[in-house]
């Protein structure tokens, strides 16, 4: 009889990395469905393209690095889905593939792979594409019709034409925009699912949303054409960012205090970019910028343990 020796605890919870990743993918199903309903085969192909490209890139690099396969963890697939959801529906297939390769290779593997990257890989992929194909990445089409006529996103309409899109359209998602960003309803369902299943911590999404609500309320009070708080929450990539990007465990602070700072920081930056920069939207850059601050935030928010505070 061979008895197993190991250190305590001898009992562990059932959660695992692949459980957490699959939960996030599950929570994205409403957004994926919404994107397919709104943008049809364009959405479907982009999502398949990105997730397969990410998965393949990761496995090839892991093979070269002589590391075990990570297929089971679904982490690369999740990055691919997230990347697809932040791309304009008219993105060309080669651009999507290139963005996926960049996201996994530069965004993740050069840092050492899972758990080591500083920036959110999907956002790095998108940032790369914005730089490489600026025109393609700012060309938007209308949902359902999918005609080639270029449209402006609600945030661009607000910023450059002082036209506010009705909240109902923003909530359901029948507006031009990135694949998975347009339907606020689908993202809220997914976000609530993640919170209920305790896949993500509430601190970052809540503080991020609260900060944007507070700032936009002030600006709305000054000038209603700045857009109401609900307009700002439902438009652009804010909900996708708050629930799915700013909650990526690897690239966000580990301390509780740090998570508040991260959420508030993202919220402030998003609103600054939306109001004062030349860009209509700033979720991507805000989160990437805050990602860079995470090591610093962690270092200065080491909590005082039980028994130190007075």
């Amino acid at each position: 009889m061979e008895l197993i020796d190991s250190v305590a605890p001898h009992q562990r919870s059932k959660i695992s990395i692949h459980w957490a990743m699959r939960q996030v993918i599950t929570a994205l199903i409403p957004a994926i469905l919404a994107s397919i309903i709104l943008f049809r085969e364009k959405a479907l192909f982009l999502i398949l393209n990105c997730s397969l490209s990410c998965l393949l890139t990761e496995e090839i690099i892991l093979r070269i690095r002589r590391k075990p396969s990570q297929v089971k963890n679904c982490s690369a697939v999740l990055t691919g889905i997230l990347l697809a959801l932040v791309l304009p529906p008219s993105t060309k297939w080669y651009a999507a593939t290139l963005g996926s390769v960049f996201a996994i290779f530069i965004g993740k593997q050069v840092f050492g792979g899972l758990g080591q990257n500083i920036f959110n890989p999907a956002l790095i992929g998108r940032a790369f594409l914005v730089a490489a194909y600026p025109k393609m990445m700012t060309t938007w089409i209308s949902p359902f019709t999918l005609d080639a006529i270029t449209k402006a996103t609600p945030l661009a309409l607000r910023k450059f034409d002082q036209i506010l899109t009705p909240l109902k359209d923003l909530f359901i998602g029948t507006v031009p925009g990135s694949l998975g960003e347009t339907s606020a309803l689908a993202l809220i369902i997914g976000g609530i699912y993640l919170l209920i299943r305790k896949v993500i911590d509430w601190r970052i999404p809540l503080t991020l949303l609260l900060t944007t609500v507070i700032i936009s309320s002030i600006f709305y009070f000054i000038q209603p054409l700045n857009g109401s708080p609900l307009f700002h929450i439902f438009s652009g990539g804010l909900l996708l960012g708050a629930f799915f990007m700013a909650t990526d465990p690897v690239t966000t602070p580990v301390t509780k205090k740090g998570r508040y700072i991260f959420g508030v920081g993202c919220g402030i930056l998003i609103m600054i970019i939306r109001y004062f920069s030349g860009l209509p939207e700033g979720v991507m850059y805000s989160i990437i910028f805050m990602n860079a601050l995470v090591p610093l935030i962690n270092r200065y928010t080491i909590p005082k343990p039980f028994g130190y505070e007075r």
Partner: protein
Amino acid sequence: MIRVEEYKLPQHDLPSEKFLHPKKVYLPLSQHIGKPSKELVSLGNLVDEGELIAKPEGKVSSSLHAPKKGKVVAIEYFPHPVLKRYKGITIECQEEEKKYFRTKDPSLLDKEKILQIIESAGIVGMGGAGFPTHIKLNPPKKIDTLIINGCECEPYLACDYRLMVENTQGVFGGVEIICKILQPKRVFFCIEENKPEAIKRFNSSISIKKYDLPSPQIVVLKSCYPQGGEKQLIYKVTKRKVPSGGLPFDVGCLVQNVATCFSIYQAVYYSKPLIERLVTFAGDSLFNPKNIWVKVGTLISELFEQGILQFKKELRKVILGGPMMGIALDSLDYPILKTTTGVLFLSQDRIDQEPEQECIRCARCVDVCPMGLLPLEFVKRVKRGEFEKLDEVFIKDCIECGCCSWGCPAKIPIVHYIKVGKLYGTHR
């Protein structure tokens, strides 16, 4: 704090049994915190049940008594569950059973005398730590709050629950004696809500006002782990925080486990030293999980040889203590110690051997740590060999409760890294 799978049934609801006739007992000279006891017997000596066979040595130590009448057949090193191998006394036992009669009236005894009885009865903390009780009950600071710990928050374990249900009187008798020594202003009995029968019995024991206790109160706590941890319990009940590196008496508190209270009662009223205890034998590999009164020193294997316990499924892991903080044993030939709360027998179904993966910095360990620490930082620093940087993240405050490892999705044995870190950190 976490909510763990409890696995308390069926042993939780079964009346305890007795096995007081071991053929042999192995008594390690170290069953407590502090200096090991010094043996007083030599090979071939005949000893009576309850006879002192090893005396305390040094300031923090404890005495050891023969659990059965018999003959000393060996004084040598043998397997010790915590220390791997340690010196101990082996007694070949005779069938004969000693009867204990109520001898003393504690109301006639003063504090010093009672402490002396507790010391000479070899009583140590029976919740697992094994700190000599006579020292704990003589703190350098005034105690105003006595907390009786009946939480038993570790999964599987049910011996404290059975004791509270079946020996309520004895536990209260012990608490009464402790109150006489410490003269606290109030007594809290802390029980988790998953122990309804104990709560009921304790409530009625208080309401009949038979016991001389200063404002006694039952505190029913939500079941969670590590509820029974001293610092956590004190905070929950009194909102006082034991300072880092401090002891409960620094905030005027003293926590005593119910089993220890019962042993104090037996020592003071019946002159019976600590030679038996109630132990939970459980786990899915066992055909008949139950709580058994056993003699200290009984080998786990003897319970199977005598047919007291039987296997149902193939045994893959034996744990001394609870699953969260207990020690894995490599065989059944280990003795029950004064501090042994339970022995668990697990089959493959209950063993999680998922390989360790890279940390994804999800901070679940941070969220569950009852001490407010950053467990993932310990792992990172130990893996990099940065032992000098462990103090800045307060490694010394870790109580090794195991919540972090429990909830880690990357299956990192965080507590293991912490133990390594503490070891290298101090020997630097």
